[in-house]
């Protein structure tokens, strides 16, 4: 087996040194009834060629986004990742290191996480960010629990414009952790009056910008209402590239931002691993879940970085920890940090403009198709259109013709016939004019 360096002779010598006759002696404590007498019923070892062939065959059965005109978003976006990103994250010193618990030999990881935290704070317009969570949806649930701890209240209001997966994750946590949710019904294209739902028992209101339907919303007034009543405003961002063009949540009075960072540096990868971002105000930091990197000095007085405020965390605080999270999304955070370092102050806004320009062009084309109605007024790189018939079969038909047209809303809201005609369509910098032509022609034909 190519990954095992012990030779049969080594094994024999080592067993002799240990003083046991066979390897079985070292497993003597395993109850006899639980010992396997033969190999488990699985294939035998394979060489690289066979494994590549087997998994390559599975990969080849899928339609890769890059092989088709591609307009699928819904919280996961296909952006160009510069070649340097993937090269750098595969350096073994990053890829194969553990959580930086020994700071003297982990300054590389600690410094990039400090840079990551700074980038996330700057992008979101917040004061502080943690070193990542699993993904945007779990970050949203953690944000609600953080708000519950901060306010001492247990009721969260969720906007109907929140990504349905984020709402569902919150619902699961609410049932088991023990808090209440007032989740609003999805109402694409309509303004929600969330302020009327906030009262003295509300810990937080969770909104999204751009919302699940792609609509841009100004939550400043809602933020003021929340603060008047002692509640917190949580803003979810599922397309982090939007912050290159759109006013950040920090300017809208957000107290906590929970976001998905996949768009920068990370592949679609069928939904994971992604990158949960969590940012908030300085005064809330001791109730933040997850790891935090802080600046300090070493014994020679030189600047360095360490994991800090770990008395919030499970390995110190055990059942009184702010969260049970341990492993986070370190390498995805590195990809994000490198991609954003490459883009910088001029590149990110330009990337955002390219996305927006593509979406504007696409929206105009879709609007021009008879029977198709655009539901958005203001948007970034994704829009919702109403088709004259259920969207799912249309999308399926277009997929058969090699066009990945977007997400039929019924995929995420299967029990709501009033949403069945809705189609969510995203356009990033990867979409070409020809791609848009194929989508709009295909759609027009499918609907004619």
């Amino acid at each position, binding site marked *: 087996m190519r990954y095992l360096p012990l030779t049969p002779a080594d094994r024999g010598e080592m067993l002799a040194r240990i003083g046991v006759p066979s390897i079985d002696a070292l497993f003597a404590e395993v109850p006899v009834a*639980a*010992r396997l007498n033969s190999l488990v019923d699985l294939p035998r070892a394979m060489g690289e060629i066979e494994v590549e062939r087997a998994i390559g065959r599975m990969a080849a059965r899928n339609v890769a986004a890059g092989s088709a005109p591609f307009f699928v978003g819904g919280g996961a976006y296909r952006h160009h990742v510069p070649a340097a990103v993937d090269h750098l994250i595969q350096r073994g010193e990053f890829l194969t290191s553990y959580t930086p618990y020994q700071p003297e030999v982990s300054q590389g990881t600690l410094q990039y996480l400090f840079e990551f935290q700074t980038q996330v704070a700057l992008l979101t317009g917040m004061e*502080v960010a943690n070193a990542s969570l699993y993904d945007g949806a779990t970050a949203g649930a953690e944000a609600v629990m953080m708000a519950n701890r901060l306010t001492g209240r247990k009721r969260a209001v969720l906007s109907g414009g929140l990504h349905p997966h984020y709402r569902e994750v919150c619902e*699961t946590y609410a049932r088991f952790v023990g808090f209440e949710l007032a989740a609003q019904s999805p109402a694409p294209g309509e303004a929600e009056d969330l302020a009327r739902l906030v009262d003295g028992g509300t810990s937080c209101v969770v909104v999204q910008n751009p919302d699940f339907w792609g609509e841009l*919303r100004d939550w400043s007034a809602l933020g003021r209402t929340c603060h008047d009543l002692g509640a917190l405003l949580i803003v979810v961002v599922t397309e982090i590239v939007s912050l290159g063009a759109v006013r950040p949540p920090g300017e809208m009075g957000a107290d906590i931002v929970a976001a998905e960072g996949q768009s920068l540096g990370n592949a679609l990868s069928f939904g994971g691993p992604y990158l949960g971002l969590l940012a908030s105000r300085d005064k809330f930091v001791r109730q933040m879940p997850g790891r935090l990197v802080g600046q300090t000095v070493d014994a020679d007085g030189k600047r360095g970085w360490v994991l800090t405020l770990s008395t919030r965390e499970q390995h110190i605080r055990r*059942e009184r920890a702010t969260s049970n999270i341990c492993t986070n999304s370190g390498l995805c955070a590195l990809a994000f940090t490198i991609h954003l370092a490459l883009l910088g102050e001029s590149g990110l806004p330009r990337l955002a403009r390219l996305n927006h320009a593509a979406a504007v062009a696409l929206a105009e084309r879709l609007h021009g198709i008879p029977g198709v109605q655009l539901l958005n007024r203001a948007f970034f790189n994704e829009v919702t259109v109403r088709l004259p018939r259920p969207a799912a079969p249309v999308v399926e038909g277009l997929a058969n013709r090699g066009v990945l047209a977007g997400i039929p809303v019924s995929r995420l809201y299967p029990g709501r016939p009033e949403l069945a005609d809705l189609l969510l369509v995203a356009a990033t910098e990867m979409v070409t004019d020809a791609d848009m032509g194929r989508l709009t022609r295909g759609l027009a034909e499918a609907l004619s």
Partner: protein
Amino acid sequence: MSEWSRALSAHAAQDIAAPKTFSGNRGLQIEEKLIFEQDSPGLCGVNLPEPAAFASRLGELERVGPIGLPGLSEPQVVRHFTRLSQKNYAIDSGLYPLGSCTMKHNPRLNEKLARLTGLADIHPLQPLSTVPGALELIDTLTHWLKTLTGMPAIALSPGAGAHGELCGMMTIRAALEAGGDPRRRVLVPESAHGTNPATAAACGYAVDPIPANECGRVDRAALESKLGPDVAALMLTNPNTCGLFEDEIVEIADAVHRAGAFFYCDGANFNAIVGRVRPADLGIDCMHLNLHKTFSTPHGGGGPGSGPVALAGTLAPYAPLPWLVHGEQGLELVEYKSGPAGTAIGRLKGYHGQMGMFVRALAYMMSHGADGLQQVAEDAVLNANYLRVLLEDNLSLSFPGPCMHEVLFDDRFLRDTGVTTLDFAKALIDEGYHPMTMYFPLVVHGALLIEPTETESKATLDEFAAVVTALSGAARSGDTERFHAAPILTPRRRLDETAAARKPVLRWRPELPRREAAD
């Protein structure tokens, strides 16, 4: 300089530790500023075209004002992150004997396959008819995990081990509530990972600790005395964090089941028994698998992980969404509560789980096969026991006799030397090794927990043991200065963690111009 740092510096061999270079660099160790301190406004490492003129549809929400990001070219960025990487220890560069972390070799084939466009470049919400290979891959992974655990169902979505624990405890609570018998206490051994009590508490349970016996295993009498009608579950790690197999596990499982409770096993240490023991045969109802431990997906400096959960038939109906099922038309992804999935606890994470990690773990399992995986467990246990016998005369072994995949020492051998476990670990860094896990588990004093894994050669273990033995001798013969000052050869020496926590600096901020700062 604080008193704290002066005390340490006084011991340092100044000529070695702090050579006076003009640059501050030390050979291959290059001082590297933050990216924010390397800003050249206007530079960009990506060439993107400016879009042709168009009418913005951002409404009133267009960003005004700068973001505050630095401008850098590609060579600057590549050099920056390359230099940072060189400040890290990694499994690629040496033995990483962190107990309970299973730092084994990460095969590069797995990285290559996870990047195949047919796997990396597919969207979780594109039509399922366009991703049959992805479903096949997940189904294949599930089959391997079911066969290795002997359990009938796998919940795929948890993002890491602790998330898997949460998933498992939620399914247990859902099953108890469905039976009309909600309970409120969860028993957790004192030797458990911190995530166990944190998870039980997060899931709404009161945590009741179980002491260890003098053999480093769960005190069965204490455990049984705590079992009662309000106990929902026992959360046990096996092999446990002392590196020992819980030899009474079958009796423990029986007692837990007789009390009407569920048996949760923390699978962090599955590497010791993979292919040799199926958890189902031990009476376990629920166990998470850290794909980033046993199945070699890279730790990546702290993630991403993946924590699928193996479930007994009694818990499977409550598994979180999505479910992958064999339907009439082949594999079906059930994303919402309906039909048999109506009992599911709901969703725990966006989309369908850590697909990128699934690919790597499957490639790892296929590479080893049934025979290779059994050899993994055997070599992991052999390596740990080999280190045990090489070191037991020079360190203090906490519990006599064979261990499983990791071996636990405590700090008795350092008694009256003035050297602590922390000092000892830091001295190992100067010797070119990543330290073992320190001060965990909590059931012995000054723990040093060593897990070599199966991917280390005998020669590496011999060299490591010789260094540890020499350090032990140094500590006990009074050569203690090297310990108190250590490490001195690293990019940074010991860092002041107290200062970091007292006044947290969690991000870079631009320095204010002097006059403004004075105002």
